């Protein structure tokens, strides 16, 4: 394995370092990332869910139903973050949960987990760039209401900016991971700051001369309009607050210190998201009636809240925050989907051609290019709710695998047998809680999207059969086990 010393001064310098490595050395992904980048990757992918999507849970269960969903699903993702922090900081390989499944369960599970990851991130990426394009159209409509139908209502107008977002972000990812995730850190921090600014704006609304921005929880909040079944149904949309935090694992092969950076970045990431979820619910449900938040047709409830309070500066800040969150999410998703696809190619689960690493930029460049048209077709042709449901279902299947994964990981390599970057406390409580919450959430998804759930399960059955009977013959079985560990207990 090559060991060219990493530089922290940017991708150009890193490429120069890479170019000077000894001839004949392996071309690997570059180890240049720190905890800040891990945070930017995880929170960047997720934060868009604070700006839109979670509010459909209000329509299912009322304002309090959505709050309960935010707490319950917050617990689910806290378990995910704890488990991921331990396993990924030890299995430091691109592909994240895919590489973990390869080590703890076996090839068929790994193939499925790899596909869950690629589908979850590619679909989320498609949704993000679709939203980015539509936001540009909404912004133009506010600035220039007389721009004409060809601009204000034509799909072709937002298509142009959807594709522009996708290409710019793919190009950034192609050119190097350090700059990609540094940009993600900046725009994610700006998006998070916009929520904080709106929160403080509503706290001091009267003193600042904006009486319309006062929170009215006392008048607007009601009991559970559809009872506890509504709360269960709202769990599906509670996922939007946190979907993608597990994406931090995909950086495992590119962080300088997996044992430190991955747990630190992931745990601070989930804490950030728990705070952001609470603030988002508090602001939106204090400014708008739950019936409006729940059936929002304006795409983004936080931006709507900022529009309704007659405070132009706040509206601009929230528009920028919403746009940045969508772009940051797409950026992180391109990074993660390409790493998962690349890892599967490297192990021959897919054609090995995808496992090429760019000799100058040290990125999985063929995987990045290959996934562009797939994301583009879904972004332009499939409705947002459908795309995001595909993403959520694949994500849920991945979370269901995690309790089994950590259970086997602790059983095969008990504490003390290998050094771990992080040991999550109270095992097996997080694994048991995660499994129970996943099953409950599958029921919630079935209530609203039963057909899609069954169709997706059928899809994974068919590709599993293809893998077992056709593809597995090409897999290098002896290379499956890459970690320098002792034999697992029982082998």
């Amino acid at each position, binding site marked *: *394995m090559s060991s060219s010393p990493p530089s922290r001064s940017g991708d150009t310098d890193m490429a120069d370092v890479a170019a000077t490595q000894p001839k004949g050395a*392996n071309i690997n992904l570059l180890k240049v990332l720190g905890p800040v980048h891990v945070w930017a990757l995880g929170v960047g992918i997720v934060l868009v869910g604070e700006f839109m999507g979670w509010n459909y849970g209000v329509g299912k269960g009322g304002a309090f139903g959505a709050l309960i969903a935010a707490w319950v699903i917050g617990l689910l993702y806290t378990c995910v973050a704890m488990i991921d922090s331990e396993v990924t900081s*030890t299995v*430091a390989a691109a592909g994240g949960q895919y590489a973990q499944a390869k080590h703890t369960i076996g090839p068929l599970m790994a193939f499925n987990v790899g596909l869950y990851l690629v589908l979850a991130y590619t679909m989320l990426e498609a949704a993000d760039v679709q939203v980015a394009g539509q936001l540009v159209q909404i912004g133009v409509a506010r600035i220039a209401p007389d*721009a004409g139908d060809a601009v204000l209502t034509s799909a*072709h107008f937002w298509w142009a900016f959807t594709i*522009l977002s996708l290409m710019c972000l793919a190009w950034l990812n192609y050119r190097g991971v350090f700059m990609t995730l540094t940009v993600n850190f900046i725009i994610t921090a700006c998006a998070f700051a916009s929520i904080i600014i709106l929160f403080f704006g509503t706290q001091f609304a009267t003193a600042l001369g904006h009486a319309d921005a006062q929170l009215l929880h006392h008048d607007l909040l009601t009991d559970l309009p559809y009872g506890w079944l509504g709360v269960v149904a709202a769990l599906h949309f509670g996922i939007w607050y946190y979907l993608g935090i597990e994406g931090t694992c995909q950086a495992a092969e590119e962080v300088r210190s997996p044992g430190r950076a991955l747990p630190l970045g992931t745990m601070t990431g989930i804490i950030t998201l728990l705070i952001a979820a609470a603030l988002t619910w508090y602001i939106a449900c204090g400014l708008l009636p739950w019936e409006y938040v729940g059936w929002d047709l304006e795409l983004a409830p936080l931006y709507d809240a900022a529009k309704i309070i007659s405070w132009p500066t706040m509206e601009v800040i929230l528009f920028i925050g919403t746009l940045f969150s969508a772009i940051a999410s797409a950026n992180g998703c391109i990074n993660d989907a390409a790493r998962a696809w690349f890892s599967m190619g490297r192990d021959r689960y897919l054609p090995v051609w995808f496992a090429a690493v760019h000799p100058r930029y040290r990125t999985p460049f*063929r995987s990045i290019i290959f996934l562009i048209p797939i994301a583009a077709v879904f972004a332009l042709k499939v409705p947002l709710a459908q795309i995001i449901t595909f993403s959520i279902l694949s994500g849920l299947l991945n979370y269901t695998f995690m309790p089994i994964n950590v259970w086997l990981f602790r059983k095969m390599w008990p504490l003390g047998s290998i050094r771990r970057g992080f040991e999550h406390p109270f095992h097996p409580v997080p694994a048991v809680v995660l499994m129970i919450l996943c099953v409950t959430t599958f029921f919630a998804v079935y209530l609203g999207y039963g057909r899609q759930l069954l169709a997706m399960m059928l899809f994974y059955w068919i590709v599993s059969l293809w893998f077992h009977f056709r593809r597995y013959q090409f897999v290098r079985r002896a290379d499956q086990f890459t970690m*320098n*560990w002792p034999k697992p207990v029982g082998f």
Partner: protein
Amino acid sequence: MNVWQILEYAAWAVSALLLLWMVADAWKVGQQFSEEQLLSSKEGVDELFAAEQKRGH
């Protein structure tokens, strides 16, 4: 044609240029380097365990 429509066409043009740049660069890299070199990446090593072994634990 107003300024917004010009921006729309500019967005398509920039997108096409970026895609062409990536495809051309990928093709050029394929010409300059052998497949063996491009596919030589190895999955991450367990640096924690290696450090522990080095310390003789």
